[in-house]
């Protein structure tokens, strides 16, 4: 316990607050079934659109009579799931492509680079929109798309958006690390390519990717909210963005239905950026020492 306290001391207060917030929402997302037993869509008919802290509704209710606090707790799950899966899968695939192409160099690298540039030349929200639009179209004109498919499509689109962002970071880092003396030394000693990659390149490239991965979580959460606002995101108030987008027509009467989701989104994005920044700074310091 004491050791943990000591280790935490070296971080600034904003960083600690960011860690705390991310920890809380992660716990809420994981433990949600234990925390909340009732359906988030319970309608409180006698409390339509009441303000925060009335009749036991911590954040108030919306005009449908849904308890906003409960909806937010419930929405945390899908919001974080989308962000973690998109950044996790997209980051892994992107890093793999980026590291390999940066290590191999030559023609393959040139092709990968130009493909990354082409995908990055479409602003990330616009790309996500295009992907969602195409993938979420029902195969038949008269049928509708199931909610699970909508969620899957949002995750897939955001994953594809993340791949070139993190892939390019991994590629750049690999290019610069594979030129270092210790890599040349390892090669001259007859180390295999796979050994060099695993022992020398990956451990150095991954921290740089991690720093940007936190920023990427922020990007994904904002993009998910934006997709919801544009009407093609996660449906039925099942994520923070979806709650926001469902509530925005009533914001004149029940501003709490807009306030609380945007506070959750903003806090999460700020926290991710803060932690990404701290990782980047510690990397820069290490870099300066080497």
């Amino acid at each position: 316990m004491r050791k943990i306290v000591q280790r935490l001391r070296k971080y600034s207060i904003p960083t600690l607050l960011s860690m705390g917030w991310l920890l809380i929402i992660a716990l809420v997302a994981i433990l949600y079934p234990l925390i909340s037993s009732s359906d988030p869509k319970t309608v409180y008919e006698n409390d339509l659109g009441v303000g925060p802290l009335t009749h036991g509704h911590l954040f108030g209710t919306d005009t449908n009579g849904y308890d906003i606090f409960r909806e937010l707790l419930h929405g945390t799950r899908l919001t974080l799931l989308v962000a973690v899966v998109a950044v996790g899968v997209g980051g892994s695939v992107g890093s793999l492509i980026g590291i390999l192409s940066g290590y191999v160099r030559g023609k393959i690298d040139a092709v990968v680079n130009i493909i990354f540039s082409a995908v990055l030349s479409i602003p990330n929200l616009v790309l996500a929109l295009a992907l969602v639009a195409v993938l979420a179209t029902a195969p038949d004109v008269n049928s509708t798309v199931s909610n699970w498919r909508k969620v899957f499509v949002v995750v897939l689109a955001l994953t594809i958006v993340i791949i070139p962002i993190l892939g390019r970071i991994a590629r750049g880092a690999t290019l610069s690390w594979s030129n270092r003396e210790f890599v040349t030394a390892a090669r001259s000693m007859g180390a295999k390519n796979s050994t060099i990659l695993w022992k020398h390149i990956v451990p150095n490239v991954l921290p740089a990717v991690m720093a940007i991965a936190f920023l990427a979580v922020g990007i994904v959460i904002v993009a998910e909210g934006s997709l919801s606002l544009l009407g093609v995101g996660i449906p039925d108030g099942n994520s923070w963005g979806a709650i926001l987008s469902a509530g925005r027509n009533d914001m004149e009467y029940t501003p709490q239905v807009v306030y609380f989701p945007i506070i959750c989104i903003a806090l999460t994005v700020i926290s991710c950026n803060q932690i990404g920044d701290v990782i980047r700074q510690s990397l820069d310091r290490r870099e300066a020492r080497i």
Partner: protein
Amino acid sequence: MTRALPILRRLGALLAVIVLSTFFLSCLLRLLPTDLVDMILSMGTPQEKAALRHTLYLDRDVFTSYIMWFSHFIRGDMGIIYGTGGGETVWSHVTRSLPISLLIMLYTQVFALVIAVPLGIFTAYRAGKKSDRAISNTLFTASSVPNFALAFLLIIVVGVKLKWLPTLEYVGFKENPFQHFKHLAIPCISLGVGLAASYTRLLRTDVIAALKDDYVTMAASKGLSDSRILLTHVFRPASVTLLTAAALNMGALIGGTLVIETIFAIPGFGFEIAYALGTKEFVALQSFIAITAIGYVIFNVTADLLIGVVDPRTRGSR
């Protein structure tokens, strides 16, 4: 020739990226789980469908249809909006909505710079002092607040509670300049605050670095006035960073404009894209997104070339 070569190479890369990204969009359209023709002409006769298939180049292979689409696209022939009965061309929607979005982005950039330049210089002068730390920390937070979050906050506080500014619709500059700026104030502020924050942070770092540089000490010892030093010796290298930052942030700004236009019901390009999405106008959507991508790429390359003009040192190495 030595100066033209990197520019030519850059233009070659630019063309390659444009072709690749538009081709990518073309392929994406082919991935539609449903038949585009059936979607547009659900009640049409087989002959009508075959004719439409022909006009959309869907009866060719991917490459030929892409080349045909692109050769028409660059001439402004982007097909029609099918939902309106086929009366309106995609191009007419582009010419109507794109200027509005460009104006919004221009105002946002101006707003961001007007805030960022004095603030960046001020915080650099007071680097490490309390006022600098307070401003810098606030700015870091401000740069991570999503623009739609800020937009909703401003709508509720400034629009609904205080009733200072309108929060919906758009008024053209020619119709009423005063109302024009009044209607665009909240959208541009909510887009610009994050941008201003990231500009200020970069400018601060740059000015601090420049103030430590030998040539600034030299200029000061020559007896040049502070304002002269600031403008010619400090600001010129700093403007390189600003240009780079502007280029980097452009993608986010385009995405942000899209959302903000939808929130404020401004009939700009983002609104058109959202509308095309909602009504499944894929033919129009392909052109809209292609235009966005091309604009973004051209902006980036222009910024790159301008950096070469402002800072000659970068010409060879980049």
